[in-house]
């Protein structure tokens, strides 16, 4: 059943194709009014059959009369039809795989250093930077420990969008730790998106608490 359906899908006609066909119909009907039934009938027949033996000299009729470019709503900017995202930026600091299975996890040590974010943003606010500095200072003093940064979102946003945003937040904190001198391979990230709210409420107070990055200190066995 699926295979049959997919065969149909491949045979679809795009909107452009349909528009073209419709304009051809109008064109044919206009000519019809001229009364040149037989000649045009032959032309159409040739077009149908793809007749190449005796090409008929046909002057192509423009899709639109010259000078008429279509209607434009006054006072509104016209956006380009094919807008491209014209920039590429370095994605960030590549994540290296370090297996820390069996390491002790401490999510409480830096609970008070939880970093909070603005709505739909992964930018580190200036007021949050000292918290990351505190964690960096501890990691410098304890060179064997590693940290897992956990990114979270509020519920406003779709599930997978938030999973990506949570990762973006965790990575923003990671970049700040690296900037403060911590080796990238000591920092792993995980996004929980909107799956692990600290406050299950549906109000601004709850959302503010849920847009966060948390630190879990990992100590080798």
């Amino acid at each position, binding site marked *: 059943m699926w295979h049959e359906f997919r065969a149909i899908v491949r045979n*679809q006609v795009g909107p452009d194709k349909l528009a073209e066909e419709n304009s051809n119909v109008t064109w044919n009907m206009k000519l019809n009014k001229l009364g040149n039934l037989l000649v045009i009938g032959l032309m159409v027949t040739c077009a149908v059959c793809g007749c190449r033996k005796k090409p008929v000299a046909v002057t192509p009729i423009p899709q639109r009369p010259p000078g008429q470019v279509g209607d434009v709503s006054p006072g509104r900017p016209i956006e380009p039809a094919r807008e491209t995202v014209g920039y590429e930026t370095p994605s960030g600091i590549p994540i290296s795989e370090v297996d820390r299975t069996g390491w002790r996890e401490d999510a409480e040590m830096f609970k008070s250093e939880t970093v909070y974010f603005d709505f739909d943003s992964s930018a580190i606010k200036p007021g949050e930077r000292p918290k990351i500095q505190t964690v960096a200072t501890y990691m410098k003093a304890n060179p064997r420990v590693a940290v897992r940064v956990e990114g979270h979102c509020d519920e406003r946003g779709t599930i997978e969008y938030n999973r990506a945003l949570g990762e973006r937040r965790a990575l923003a904190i990671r970049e700040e730790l690296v900037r403060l001198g911590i080796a990238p391979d000591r920092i792993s990230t995980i996004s929980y998106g909107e799956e692990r709210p600290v406050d299950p409420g549906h109000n601004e107070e709850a959302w503010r608490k849920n847009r966060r990055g948390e630190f879990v200190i990992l100590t080798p066995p």
Partner: protein
Amino acid sequence: MSVVVTRNVGLILFAISGLALTAQEEVVISKEAWHLNELPIPIAVVGFSGEVERVLKFDLEVVGCKLVSPSEAQYLVSGSNSERVEGRLTDQISKTVLLAKAYTGGTLRAQAHAFADDIVALLPNRGRGIARTRIAFRVAQGQVSEIYVADYDGFNAQPVTQDGTITAAPAWVPGRLELYYTSYKLGGPHIFRHDLSTGTRKVFARYPGLNTSAAVSPDGRRVAMILSKSGSPDLYVCNADGSDLKQLTFTREDESSPCWSPDGRWICFAAKPKERRVLCKVRADGGPVEIIRTGGVPNPTEPDWSPDGRWIAFTSQTRAGFDICVVPAEGGTATVLVAGEDPSWAPNSRTLIFTRRVQGGTVLSLLDVPTRQVKDVARVSGNCSQPSWAR
């Protein structure tokens, strides 16, 4: 290209007949193509009882029929279900019987779905029936979520995972009983591939950081997904066995929710260049990223490209909440349909399944896009979301 050829012939025949007779101011509308803002078809269902009656009525309402009394109906569905489903479809305007059939084997429920599909195939602009298709979705209870599959109406639901962790974003392999999904079973968000016919599964993507939102190409050979191993969530594509991994976007901001064009040439996804959320597309083998305009609605995410290639359905986020929208696949002015999120097209390119917020949770609902009729699917205990329609 058979359909294209047929349509051309139809148009040309029309043109010739117009030439031979008189010019007719008629608009040729393709038989398959629906348009936005259609009126529902008045239809009556008589003679059936119990489950069969409920199934028939549900299946017909889902594809944009309105149930009315026989005297008001354009089409009459009549028959019985004493031991097996027997029925006929009558066009009450032309007074012709379009279908008369009896069904054997399977359950009465399955027979009713089969009858509904036969009816729908004869109604205008409905394409092939969808009453015997399947869906996959996520069911969340507290902080645990699992993947389920069910009939398209929510019946015969069964769990695919029982991992007791976060599981999300199921995606079918086209034409196969096989799913990709995101699971935290091994710690982080990783992508698993799960063959439902054999029950075997394996880890498909376990790169450092984020691995999520798998989407399988129409030919089943390539998989698009979001990985953050480069240091930012970006769009990647690889072979169905995980080899030949290629990065397609290189932005600092996050990309999410890829889907494929039905010809397999493009991958559409949600992105956020210059602090503005947009839908984008990129060639599946790489190239410049183009913006797909969604004029009139803000913050588009979760795109899904219709199997006939004409539309992209997506979620728009406003201050008030989420809306299901469609936009022509080449971009343009978007149309808001109903409140909801995460739409997935049925194989008929007409019906959407989506997540709807209700008091205290979320349910799955079916939307007939042209008439905007909404029907809830049967409930599974827990909050259902992230539906994916097998196609």
